[in-house]
C-alpha cells in the first residue's frame, strides 16, 4: 500500500439542514478522530462497522463543539480498503467546518487531494480495472477545478498577505543558510534573539490572518452565481430582493465599485456569491462595452447562471445570443415580470433548457423566489453544482495550514530558547515557510537558493 498518511474531506455537499459527513481514511483515521471525540465508549477499541454517539471536543479548551454520530469501518472492509471513520455532524457551513478544522489541527490528518479517496480505493484494489480511466478522469477534472479555484484566490488579499509573510521568512532562512554554508563570510552572525524576534512577528501576522479568516472577510466562499440578461429585464431588482431578505455571510467586499456588483447571500442554506452584471447586448458605446466585456468574463467564471428574461416581451436577438452562449452550462432561466401578461416564447425556452430549470417569478410582487430557492437547492444537492465545496474545502485547508505554520514557528522559538543550534531551528522555520507556501500553492526549494544569492554577496 502506497499511502501511509491519513486524509480527510467533507463527503457531502455543503448546505444548511440535514447532515454533513466528514470522511477520514488511513492508518490514523481512528486514533486521530479519537483525539477530538468524547463518548462513553473508547472508539480506539471499537469494532468495525459500529456507530457511536458523542461529542466533538476541542482538546485544548475542552469545549464541546458539536454533537455527532461517528462510524468506524476498519480496512479492508471499507470504501478505500483502509481504516475509515465517518463523522456525521449537523448540516450547515459552520458546524462541519469547525469539526474538520479541529481534526486537521491535531497534526496527523491532512486534507485529501481532489479525487484521492477514489484513487486510494483503486490502488488498494477496491475498484475494478475497467474503471481505471474513469478514476483518472475524476482526478484530472477535480484537480483542474481545484487549480482554477486556487488561481482565483491567488489574486486575493489573503494571498498578498501570505506572500509578504513568506518573504520575511525566506529572508530569515537565507540569513541562517548563509551562516551555515559560508561560515567565514562577513555577514552578521545569526542570533537566537533575532530568530525569536522575526518568528514572533510572523506569529502575530498569522494570528491576525486567522482572526480575519474566522470573521469570513478574507476567505470568500460560495457558489459563484452570475445574474445575466439583456438590459432592463430586472436583474438588479432581483439582486436587491435576494440580498434584502437573505443578506448573510459577508458584505462590503472590495470590488463593488466595479461594473460587476458582488454580494454574498445564503439561499436555502446554500452560500452564494452573487454577481450582478451589466446588461449584455451589442453596443458601440466604449464605456458600456467595457461593462459588457466584464459581464461576459463573469459569465465564463460562474458556477451557476441566473438568466433573466422579460416575460412581458417577445424574445429578442440579444436573448437568443445569450441562449447560444449558455448551452451546456448550469443555468436557471427566470421568467420575470409574470405579473404582466406573458408574451415571451416559453416553448422556445422549454426546448432549449431543462423544464425544471425554468422558474416563473415576479420580483416586483415577490412571487416565485421560493421556487428559485428550491431549484438551486435541487441542483446543488443533485451534484450539478460543485464549486462551492471545493472553494470551501480549500478554505478549511488554508486555516489548517495557517495553524500548522504557527505551531512550527512556536516550536522553533521554544527550540531557540532551550539552546538548540540554529541549523536545527531552521528546520522549524522552513517547515512554516513551506506550509504557508501550500496556502498559496507555491513551494519550491530553489526560491530559497535564489534568495541566498540575491541577498548576500558571496564568492571566492
Amino acid at each position, binding site marked *: 500500500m502506497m499511502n*501511509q498518511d491519513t486524509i480527510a474531506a467533507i463527503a457531502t455537499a455543503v448546505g444548511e439542514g440535514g447532515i454533513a459527513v466528514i470522511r477520514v481514511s488511513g492508518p490514523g483515521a481512528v486514533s486521530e478522530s479519537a483525539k477530538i471525540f468524547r463518548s462513553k465508549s473508547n472508539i480506539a477499541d471499537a469494532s468495525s462497522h459500529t456507530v457511536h454517539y458523542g461529542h466533538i471536543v476541542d482538546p485544548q479548551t475542552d469545549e464541546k463543539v458539536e454533537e455527532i454520530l461517528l462510524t468506524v469501518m476498519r480496512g479492508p472492509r471499507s470504501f478505500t480498503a483502509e481504516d475509515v471513520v465517518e463523522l456525521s455532524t449537523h448540516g450547515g457551513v459552520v458546524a462541519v467546518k469547525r469539526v474538520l478544522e479541529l481534526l486537521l489541527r491535531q497534526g496527523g490528518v491532512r486534507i485529501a487531494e481532489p479525487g484521492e479517496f477514489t*484513487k486510494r480505493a483503486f490502488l488498494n484494489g477496491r475498484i475494478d480495472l475497467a474503471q481505471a480511466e474513469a478514476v*483518472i478522469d475524476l482526478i484530472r477534472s477535480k484537480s483542474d477545478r481545484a487549480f482554477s479555484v486556487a488561481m482565483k484566490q491567488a489574486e486575493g488579499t489573503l494571498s498578498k498577505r501570505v506572500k509578504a509573510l513568506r518573504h520575511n521568512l525566506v529572508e530569515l532562512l537565507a540569513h541562517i543558510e548563509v551562516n551555515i554554508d559560508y561560515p567565514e*563570510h562577513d555577514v552578521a552572525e545569526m542570533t537566537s534573539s533575532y530568530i525569536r524576534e522575526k518568528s514572533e512577528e510572523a506569529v502575530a501576522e498569522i494570528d491576525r490572518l486567522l482572526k480575519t479568516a474566522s470573521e469570513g472577510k478574507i476567505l470568500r466562499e460560495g457558489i459563484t452565481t452570475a445574474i445575466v440578461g439583456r438590459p432592463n429585464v430586472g436583474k438588479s431588482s432581483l439582486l436587491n430582493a435576494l440580498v434584502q431578505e437573505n443578506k448573510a455571510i459577508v458584505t462590503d467586499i472590495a470590488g463593488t465599485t466595479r461594473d460587476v456588483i458582488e454580494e454574498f447571500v445564503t439561499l436555502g442554506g446554500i452560500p452564494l456569491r452573487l454577481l450582478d452584471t451589466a446588461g449584455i447586448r451589442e453596443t458601440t458605446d466604449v464605456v458600456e462595452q467595457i461593462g459588457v466585456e466584464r459581464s461576459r468574463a463573469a459569465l465564463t467564471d460562474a458556477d451557476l447562471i441566473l438568466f433573466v428574461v422579460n416575460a412581458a416581451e417577445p424574445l429578442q436577438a440579444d436573448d437568443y445570443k445569450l441562449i447560444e452562449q449558455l448551452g451546456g452550462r448550469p443555468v436557471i432561466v427566470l421568467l420575470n415580470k409574470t405579473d404582466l401578461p406573458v408574451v415571451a416564447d416559453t416553448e422556445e425556452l422549454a426546448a432549449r433548457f431543462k423544464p425544471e430549470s425554468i422558474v416563473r417569478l415576479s420580483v416586483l410582487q415577490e412571487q416565485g423566489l421560493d421556487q428559485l430557492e428550491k431549484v438551486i437547492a435541487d441542483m446543488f444537492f443533485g451534484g450539478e453544482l460543485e464549486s462551492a465545496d471545493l472553494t470551501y474545502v480549500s478554505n478549511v485547508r488554508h486555516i489548517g495550514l495557517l495553524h500548522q505554520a504557527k505551531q512550527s514557528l512556536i516550536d522553533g522559538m521554544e527550540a531557540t530558547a532551550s539552546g538548540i543550534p540554529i*541549523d*536545527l531551528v531552521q*528546520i522549524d522555520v522552513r517547515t512554516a515557510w513551506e506550509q504557508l507556501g501550500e496556502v498559496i500553492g507555491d513551494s519550491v526549494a530553489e526560491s530559497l537558493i535564489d534568495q541566498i544569492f540575491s541577498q548576500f554577496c*558571496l564568492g*571566492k
Partner: protein
Amino acid sequence: MGYEAGQFDVIVIGAGHAGCEAALAAARMGCETLLLTINLDMVAFMPCNPSIGGPAKGHVVREIDALGGEMGRNIDRTFIQMRMLNTGKGPAVHALRAQADKFLYQHTMKKTIEETEHLTLRQGMAEELLVENGACVGVITKTGATYRAKTVVLTTGTYLRGKIIMGELMYESGPNNQQPSVRLSQSLKELGLELVRFKTGTPPRVHKDTIDFDKTEIQPGDENPKFFSFETEYSDNEQLPCWLTYTSEETHRIINDNLHRAPMFSGAIEGTGPRYCPSIEDKIVRFADKPKHQIFLEPEGKHTSEYYVQGLSTSMPEDVQLQILRSIPGLERVEMMRTGYAIEYDAVVPTQLWPSLETKVVPNLFTAGQINGTSGYEEAAGQGVMAGINAARKAQGKEPVIIERSQGYIGVLIDDLVTKGTSEPYRLLTSRAEYRLLLRHDNADLRLTPTGYEIGLIGEERYAKFQQKKQYVEEEIERLKSVKLKAEQPVQDMLAELGSAPLQFTTDALTLLRRPEVNYSHVERFVPSPVELTEDMKEQVEIQIKYAGYIEKQLIQVERLSKMEKKRIPDNIDYSDVHGLASEAKQKLTNIRPLSIGQASRISGVTPADISILLVYLEHYNRVTAARG
C-alpha cells in the same frame, strides 16, 4: 594511420578530480582500466583554490571516503592547514576544510594511480568516441590510437572547447593555459548530446615575499586537526596560516572606472556563470552598497611562494588586475605571478543522464564532473566515484548503484542534476539537502560504508573496524538509557557549574545528556563506559542522543517517501499513451524518463495530480501485465 592500441574494460577520459576517482574505483573493482589525460603533469591538478572541503563539500569528501574513494586519504596526506568550520552550530553542519599543498596533492594522487593494479595511466588527447550499434565501444586519440572498452567515462572538466578571457584578450585554451579539447565536443554533438556553454573563473596568484602580512589578520589552522578519511588516525603535517584582508574604496573605484573593459559587462562572455562564485567586478556592481569585501590570502604549497587571492576572481585585463591588487591593504607592493581569468567551456545538459550517470542516448557512455554542469573539486570527485563504480558494474554485467537523497549529499547532487538539470554551474549547498540532519559529516561512514563494502571498494579489515564502531555506539546508547544518576551533591554541583537546573529525582544518563548544556564528558564522570570508547564513538553517541527528536522527525519523512522511491516505473512506458496526464507532464516525463515515482515527483512541472494519474496508470498496467502472466 590509425592503430589498435588496446582493449580495456573501462576507459576514463580526463584525469582531474572526477577522472581520478572514476579510474581508481573501476580498477579497484577489478576492471582493466585506462586513464587518458591530455597532459600527465596535470593529474589531479587544482586549477582554482588550493583547498578542499567546507560545508556540504567536506561532507561529500567523507562520503567518497566511505565508498572507498581516494580524495579524503589524499588530502589527509597533503594538507597544510585543517579547520573545522561551523563548530558553534549543530553537528549536521560542522564541516572540515583543508588547505592543500596543491603540488604535493597532485603528485601523491598520481603516484597512487601509478601504483594501482589494473590501472593504466597514459597521456593522449581523445578526439572521437567510437560507437557501434548505437553504443560506445571506445575512443580514438589525436595520435591515431584506438582504445576499445566495454564502457567509457568522460570527465573532461572545463577542457571542452575551453576559451580563456582576460579583458579584451580571448583565446582557445583549457584551464591554466593547457591545450583545450576541441574535436571531442563535435563528436558528442554528432552522437545527439545537447551541450550548453558555462563560465567560471579564477583569481590572480601573487608572490609571498611582496605581501605585507602585518596589514592582514592571521587565520591559523586547528591545533588538534580532524581528518577526512576514516582511515587516517594521525598526521604530523606542519600547518601554515591563511591571511585575511579587505578590498578598499580605491579597489571599488578602479573597478567601476574600468567596467567598460570587463568582459562580464561588455558582452564578450556568453556562458552562464555561477551566482555563488561571482567575479569581483560582479560583486561590486550587484552589491554596490557594500563598502568592502573579504580577501583571503592562501598559500598554494610548502615549496612555492605563490599565494592564491581568494575573493578576487576576475576577468579584467591584466593591467587592471594589478591595479586592483595593489589597492588592497597588505598588497600595495605585490607582484602578480599569474593573471586571473574567466573560462568558458561546453557542458552536457545533465538531464540527458540516468541516475547511474550513463547517458541515455549513448549506452555505455558515462559522464562525470564539470562536464555535467557542476563546479568544485568535491562535486566532481563525488560524481567521479559513482560513474567509475557504475561503469565498472556495467562492464561486469551488474545493476547500477544509486545513492538516495536520504543517504548522502552525493545522492542529492546527482538526483538534482539528472532530474532538474541546472541553469548555471551547480554547487552543493547544505540547504539543497532536505534531510540535512541525517546527512552529517560525522556519520558519513555509518551511512555509506556498507555500500562501499558491498561494491567491493572497502576491504574486510576496515569493514570489521566500522562494524565494531557501530556496535559500540549502539550498545553505549542502550547502556545510558538504563544507568541512573541520583540527585546527589556531586551531580548537582556539576549541573550548577554548567548553569543547568538541579535534578529533582533520580534520572537516567540519557535524559540528562539531552540537556543542551550537558555533554558526554560530563555524564562520563559519573557513569563511565565499561569498554574503552574512541572520541569518535563518544561524539556519535552524544549526537544521536541529543538530537534524537529532530532526527526522528526526518526519519519519519524518509520512511513516508521511501514507498514512492521504491515504486519503480517500467522503462518501456509510453507517456503519450497515459490518458489524463497534462501535456507539460507528458513532455517532461518523456524527456527525463524517471526510474521511480519519487524521482518523477521531483520534476518541475509534474503536479501531484499527474503523479496520482501515473500511479493509477501503473496499477492498471501491472494488473494487466500480471493477468497476462
